[in-house]
């Protein structure tokens, strides 16, 4: 025990008695035990108390990590700082006997001092001569005896270890109770106490499911919103109500719904803030960010049209939400939004079309030959199959979407025979949904048939073969046109040598994107070898739709006439003009009578009264009307004159009469009658004196008389011209009848020579209406019989007209021809000939019709007289006045100009044909 270093040898020391030593050692052990126990208990107590502090405080609020760290440090400091200090003080500080003696002296001062004395004596160093070892020993024994009588444990310092033990026991009990009552809270508190800086979530009895509560919460700007606060399914407490508030606004309460969620309804917010949420012991704060909802920037559709159209895909703007697309197209809808999109939906639903029509039901004239018809039927069947497939309405489904940033696009949608509706919804990356869904309505349409028109020409037109028609054709389609052109189909209405014309001409090649094609057409029958007949002229067009075929326009009827037929038409037009002219003259005369009556019955003063002024106004109005009528007649006359010049069958004198009459008509309409009208107007001048009014009226009457006279002269001229015209038309009519008869003869001769197209059986000997006769011949006989009836009728009319014409003109030539016709009994004979044709007396009929053709021709020649080698030559009526010579010159010039215009038009027509032939060989 004594470790005091000393230079004194051990044998010089006198140890304290053994009993005392033992007693001190026991004291020391007791001291150490108690104080170490105290140190340990204090450390434990500190730790438990700091834990309990966290446990208890966190039941009211979450302790911030820094404070939890402070509590932990404070708790552990008892064990880490106090205990070592305590142990050092009591254990290390009381390891020697004199230290113990001093401690004992605190309770037992005398004993303690003595003990301290003998401890010091024990270590005393002196020489033998100065000290008495025996005395020292005796002193030690004495002190030892006194110490032995005392209970050293009473000298131990005040001990807290029992209280500490009780405290530790109580704290442990509290901890155990806490864990027993709220094990999750205990565990949570333990974790948060041991690891104060960890992110261990604070435990509450009421637990919100924060995983389903976005933070920050983005809400639509200025719009009322609902905030949902769900509880965790394992929440220990589920309070009936909870409350929340936005910033410092009023609290809003919500009850717990069946799905363990509180729903708080907030009014619209415009500034950033926080929602404070409380339920039971749980409280939460959520950041809120009001923001504008994501909107549609643009919407478009990428439409890929069916392959046959050969068109590039096209983008269609869909801001209106409506798309009209062709059946068979593929559509991709693409939307662009104001913010990055997180999710979107597009629900496709289709509905059947209201009206259902078979494809191409209305397409006209798809086939031209039996082979094409068969092909068309096959195609129609294929179309029906395709149609059946196409009409299946697809089931509603959600479309697959591709989301890239702010853009959303759908999968390709194949369009069939249905309409579709696709509402879109979207949510941005902030969790905001679009204000409204964007609905795309798709209406499918069919590829419409192209249309073709002819314009710039009348629907019925009469021309000579060498004349040229100029007009425009126009075609339109919804997608693209392959080509446009014209086609014609002839119809021979009577037996002639000519054949029905049939042909077509490509005028322009189109392209998949040509939706409109037009071209000028120059069509001359002579260029295409078309003889006089009726033809139907049509524009045609083709689009790219497979199996649609050719589409034709409404036809125009072109009557290509012989010169004789043309002359007859001109004659009837001339008759109408004369009739209108006579009517105008009658009206003018009636107006003159009224004006004269007014002049004679009324004085100069009376002419200025209202009643007479009204009469003058009426007369002026009538004059204006008649002037307009006269202009109109002059215009018609000019047309007839031009056509007559082109026809070339009229003699120069007739043409001269027509030209004079036309000039008179023009002067009447443009000068004479307007002058009368003007004078009648002056007679109504309010500023005029009665004498001036009377003078104006008289002047008007004088001019009107001159005009009436001129009109009568014009009528005489036109009548004269008409007589000549009529005379020349007898020639034409006879020639036409001759040509008809000749045509009948030619057709019959071809038939019995076996040259009739498509006829198999011989015509000779075949009884009509029997099985012996070939159907082709049967049809031919019917047609020839019809032609013969018409010719007979024409000839009968010629005969009657000749008789009347002679009665009027007393020209001997007409009498001669009329008598020849009567004598020949031509009308009866021609009727008999018709019966023979009907009975299939082919050979005889052919011979007779040929004979009658010759007879009719001879009469025409006789009427026509010797020719002057017409054409541009002339000079037939030569030797006339210089005025006549000038007229003849001008007439020749006019004919020459007309002829040159025809030649130029035919040249153009040929050039167009050449280009068309080149076009038709182009690769599609």
């Amino acid at each position, binding site marked *: 025990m004594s470790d005091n270093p000393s230079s004194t040898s051990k044998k010089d020391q006198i140890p304290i008695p053994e009993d005392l030593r033992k007693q001190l050692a026991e004291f020391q052990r007791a001291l150490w035990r108690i104080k170490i126990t105290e140190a340990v208990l204090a450390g434990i107590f500190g730790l438990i108390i700091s834990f309990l502090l966290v446990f208890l405080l966190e039941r009211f609020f979450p302790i911030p990590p820094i404070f939890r760290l402070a509590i932990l440090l404070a708790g552990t400091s008892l064990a880490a700082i106090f205990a070592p200090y305590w142990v050092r003080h009591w254990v290390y500080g009381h390891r020697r006997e004199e230290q113990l003696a001093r401690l004992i002296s605190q309770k037992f001062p005398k004993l303690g001092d003595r003990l301290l004395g003998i401890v010091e004596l024990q270590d005393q160093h002196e020489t033998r001569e100065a000290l008495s070892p025996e005395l020292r020993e005796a002193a030690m024994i004495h002190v030892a005896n006194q110490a032995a009588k005392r209970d050293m444990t009473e000298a131990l310092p005040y001990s807290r270890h029992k209280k500490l033990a009780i405290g530790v026991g109580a704290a442990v009990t509290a901890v155990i109770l806490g864990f027993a009552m709220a094990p999750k809270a205990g565990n949570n508190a333990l974790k948060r106490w041991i690891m104060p800086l960890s992110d261990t979530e604070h435990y509450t009895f009421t637990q919100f499911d924060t995983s389903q509560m976005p933070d920050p919460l983005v809400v639509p700007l200025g719009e009322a919103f609902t905030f949902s606060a769900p509880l965790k399914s394992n929440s220990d407490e589920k309070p009936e109500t909870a409350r929340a508030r936005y910033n410092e606004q009023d609290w809003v309460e919500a009850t717990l719904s069946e799905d363990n969620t509180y729903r708080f309804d907030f009014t619209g917010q415009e500034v950033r803030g926080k929602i404070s949420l409380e339920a039971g012991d749980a409280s939460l704060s959520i950041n809120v960010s009001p923001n504008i909802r994501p909107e549609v920037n643009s919407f478009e559709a990428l439409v890929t049209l069916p392959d046959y159209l050969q068109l590039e895909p096209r983008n269609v703007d869909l801001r209106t939400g409506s798309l009209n697309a062709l059946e068979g197209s593929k559509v991709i809808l693409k939307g662009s939004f104001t913010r990055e999109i997180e999710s979107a939906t597009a629900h496709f639903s289709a509905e059947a079309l209201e009206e259902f029509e078979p494809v191409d039901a209305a397409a006209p004239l798809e086939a031209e030959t039996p082979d094409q018809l068969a092909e068309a039927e096959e195609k129609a069947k294929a179309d029906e199959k395709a149609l059946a497939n196409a009409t299946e309405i697809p089931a509603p489904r959600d479309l697959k979407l591709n989301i890239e940033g702010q853009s959303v696009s759908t999968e390709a949608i194949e369009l069939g025979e249905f309409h579709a509706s696709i509402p879109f919804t979207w949510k941005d990356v902030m969790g905001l949904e679009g204000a409204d869904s964007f609905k795309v309505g798709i209406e499918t349409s069919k590829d419409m048939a192209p249309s073709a028109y002819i314009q710039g020409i009348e629907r019925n037109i009469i021309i000579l073969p*060498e004349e040229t028609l*100029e007009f425009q054709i126009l075609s339109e389609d919804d997608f693209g046109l392959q080509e446009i052109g014209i086609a014609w189909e002839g119809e021979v209405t009577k037996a002639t040598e000519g054949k029905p014309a049939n042909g077509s001409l490509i005028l322009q*090649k189109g392209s998949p994107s040509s939706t409109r094609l037009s071209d*000028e057409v120059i069509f001359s029958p*002579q*260029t*295409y*070898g078309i003889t006089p007949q009726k033809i139907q002229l049509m524009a045609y067009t083709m689009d790219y739709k497979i199996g649609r075929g050719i589409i034709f326009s409404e036809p125009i009827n072109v009557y290509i006439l012989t010169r004789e037929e043309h002359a007859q038409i001109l004659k009837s037009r001339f008759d109408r003009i004369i009739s209108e002219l006579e009517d105008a003259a009658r009206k003018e005369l009636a107006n003159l009578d009224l004006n004269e009556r007014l002049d004679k019955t009324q004085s100069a003063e009376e002419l200025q009264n209202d009643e007479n002024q009204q009469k003058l106004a009426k007369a002026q109005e009538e004059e204006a009307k008649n002037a307009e009528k006269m202009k109109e007649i002059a215009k018609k006359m*000019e047309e007839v*004159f*031009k056509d007559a*010049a082109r026809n070339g069958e009229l003699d120069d004198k007739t043409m001269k009469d027509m*030209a*004079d009459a*036309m*000039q008179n008509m*023009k002067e009447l309409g443009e000068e004479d009658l307007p002058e009368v009208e003007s004078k009648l107007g002056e007679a109504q001048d309010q500023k005029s004196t009665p004498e001036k009014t009377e003078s104006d009226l008289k002047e008007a009457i004088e001019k009107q008389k001159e005009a009436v006279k001129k009109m009568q002269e014009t009528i005489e001229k036109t009548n004269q011209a008409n007589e000549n015209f009529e005379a020349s038309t007898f020639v034409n009519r006879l020639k036409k009848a001759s040509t008809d008869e000749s045509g009948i003869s030619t057709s019959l001769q071809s038939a019995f020579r076996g040259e009739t197209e498509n006829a198999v059986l011989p015509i000779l000997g075949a009884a009509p209406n029997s099985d012996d006769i070939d159907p082709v011949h049967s049809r031919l006989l019917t047609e020839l019989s019809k032609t013969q009836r018409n010719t007979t009728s024409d000839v009968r009319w010629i005969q009657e007209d000749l008789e009347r014409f002679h009665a009027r003109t007393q020209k001997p030539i007409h009498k001669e021809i009329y008598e020849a016709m009567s004598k020949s009994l031509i009308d009866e004979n021609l009727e008999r000939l018709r019966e023979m044709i009907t009975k299939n007396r082919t050979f005889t009929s052919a011979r007779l019709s040929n004979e009658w053709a010759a007879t009719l021709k001879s009469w025409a020649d006789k009427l026509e007289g010797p020719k002057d080698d017409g*054409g*541009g*030559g002339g*000079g037939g009526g030569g030797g006339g006045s210089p*005025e006549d010579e*000038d*007229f003849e*010159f*001008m*007439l*020749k*010039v*006019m*004919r*020459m*100009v*007309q*002829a*040159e*215009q*025809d*030649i*130029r038009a*035919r*040249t*153009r027509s*040929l*050039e167009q*044909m*050449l*280009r068309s*032939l*080149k*076009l*038709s*060989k*182009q*690769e599609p």
Partner: protein
Amino acid sequence: MKQTLLTALASAGLLMAGFADPVKEEAKKPTEAEKAKALVKHQEGSEKVSIDQDKQAANAQELLAEQTNPQVIALLNEVEILMAQATDRLEDADTDGDTIAMQTEIIEKIYEAAKAKGN
């Protein structure tokens, strides 16, 4: 009156004229056989027109023979020459824009001759 009538007559003829539109050159190449066939058909038509054009030249010659006015004679001479050239071109199946332009010139010159005669 005479002057008016003559001018009216000449105008009546000319009013019918439509001036030639430029020919659109947009043809592509057909096959050789088809081209030959097309040319034959075109040539036949062109020959017919050339015959009529030649008749016109004869008429012009006849009209020329009756004239005494030097201006009219000069114009009709030009008409006759142009007609002969047009006939040659048509015989060669040349129906292109130059031939049509030539025919237009013929019409203009006939009209000029008519005016010269009236003066």
